[in-house]
């Protein structure tokens, strides 16, 4: 179980304090899939970065399976069983897809295993394992490999920040299949997409850095439709 307790994040901009997250408390139960949604700038990505340790809350505490994550480095959190797929995949000069999947799993994988990891995201290992993870791959390919890196770790908690962004021709159906296939894991997905919200056990709507509503998709939907964000509302009408 993951608990966020009174998380606030305040940054200084032009000499003024700006509140990005305002006293957010949430509980994520084991084995469930949560989708965090909300308008741009509502604090969704910042919130999940705090779980991974990429950002540090100004106040508040995060507890994962009874362990306070306060002060733990990103890698220590990863080794407790948290995986994270970035919204914008990181490129490397020289590191190959195989190197990254080996790093993600902490071992040297044979071809068959790498094939399993990549075919889960619709890629053929033969074409990709020796490719460098750089600008020679398309945005969609990078994104799918980013997902494969998170999934292959078989973590207790998976965080996906806008997994649908840049998924080129690959369909949302495949993406939702992946989330359904993650078995016992807890999944936290940041998304705007209706099809992804529909698979959530619970949808969390953030607005202005605060939790506006938590519930089943149909319960949260009216709040999304009342939301002032045109893009988000458009997705759900």
């Amino acid at each position, binding site marked *: 179980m993951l608990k966020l307790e009174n998380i606030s994040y305040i940054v200084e901009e032009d000499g003024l304090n700006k509140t990005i997250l305002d006293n957010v408390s949430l509980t994520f139960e084991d084995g469930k899939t949560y989708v965090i949604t909300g308008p741009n700038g509502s604090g969704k990505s910042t919130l999940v970065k705090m779980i*991974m340790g*990429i950002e540090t809350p100004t106040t508040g505490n995060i507890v994962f399976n009874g362990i306070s994550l306060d002060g733990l*480095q*990103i*890698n220590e959190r*990863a*080794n407790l069983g948290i*995986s*994270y797929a*970035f919204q914008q995949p*990181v490129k*490397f*000069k*020289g*590191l*190959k897809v195989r*190197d*990254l999947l080996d*790093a*993600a799993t*902490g071992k040297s994988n044979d071809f068959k295993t790498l094939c399993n990891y990549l075919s889960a995201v619709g890629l053929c290992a033969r074409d990709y394992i020796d490719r*460098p993870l750089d600008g020679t791959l398309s945005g969609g390919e990078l994104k799918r490999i980013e997902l494969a*890196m998170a999934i292959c*770790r078989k973590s207790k908690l998976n965080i996906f920040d806008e997994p649908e962004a840049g998924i080129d021709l690959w369909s949302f159906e495949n993406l939702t299949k992946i989330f359904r296939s993650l078995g016992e894991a807890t999944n936290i997905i940041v998304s705007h997409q209706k099809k992804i919200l529909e698979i959530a056990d619970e949808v969390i709507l953030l607005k202005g850095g605060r939790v506006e509503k938590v519930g089943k998709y149909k319960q949260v939907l009216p709040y999304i439709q009342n939301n002032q964000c045109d893009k988000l509302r458009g997705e759900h009408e």
Partner: protein
Amino acid sequence: MNKIEKALLEKVSGLHKIPAGAVNIRRNGEIVKRNSTSEIEIVPKTDKSGIDIFVKPNVVGKSVHIPVLITVGGLDDLVYNDFYIGENADVTIVAGCGIHNSTCNTSTHNGIHCFHISKNSKVKYFESHVGEGEGSGGKVLNPITKIYMESGSQMHMETIQIEGVTSTIRKTFASLKDNAKLMVTEKLLTTDFQTAKTQFDVNLLGENSSVEISSRSVAKNYSVQEFKSNIIGKNQCFGHVECDGIVLDEARIVSIPKIDAADNNASLVHEAAIGKIAGEELTKLMTLGLTKQQAEETIIQGFLMGDN
């Protein structure tokens, strides 16, 4: 050869033992082993230290190994090796030098290699430089490579120096005729107070001649590197220089690329990027469970050992 020499030989040339083909192994300024074949002849120079290597025309798929080992301190070794590659040949040449210096006196190797590459022949040239040994004496390597390429010839030069070399000045000069093609990949890692200077001077004389130079380097601690390149296009030709550097700690990398289109049909490009390891690369690897140090090592390993 003793254990140290065998280990050094493997590091420099990838050889576990002395190979059967054309070979010339030089140790502490003297020849340990020399072997010619019916297709590749190695002849000692009579006027100065060094060898002439003659590859006969149309020889395909053969290799020559000419590693140099230095295992004593206070040696200043100078050698001239000239390669004459016959027409339509396709060969691999493995050179390189390893210095194991356990003394407080500096040892230096100055290897001057000159390639005469005939029409339509192809050469793959691997050069590896290694410095090791606990002694405070310097391990200095100053290679000079001169490449003369006739019409339609190709050369791929891979040069690598990973740690241990106290100081190096590496100069490469090339002159290319019609349709000749040169590719150079350089990989450098310096640490402590080491210095490395690299200079490429390329003359693109011939129509449709081309050169691609890719340098990747990592400077750690207080080490200093300087990369200079000067490509002159004197015909319809193509030249591309790319210099990527990662600086860590208090290290410094200076890059001075120069391109000169002496003919208005020349197309020349240079790119240079120097900086720290990108924070997002470290963060990504840490989300996979690597410590910051492991992430740094993984990124540097990939950067230096991956394909350019």
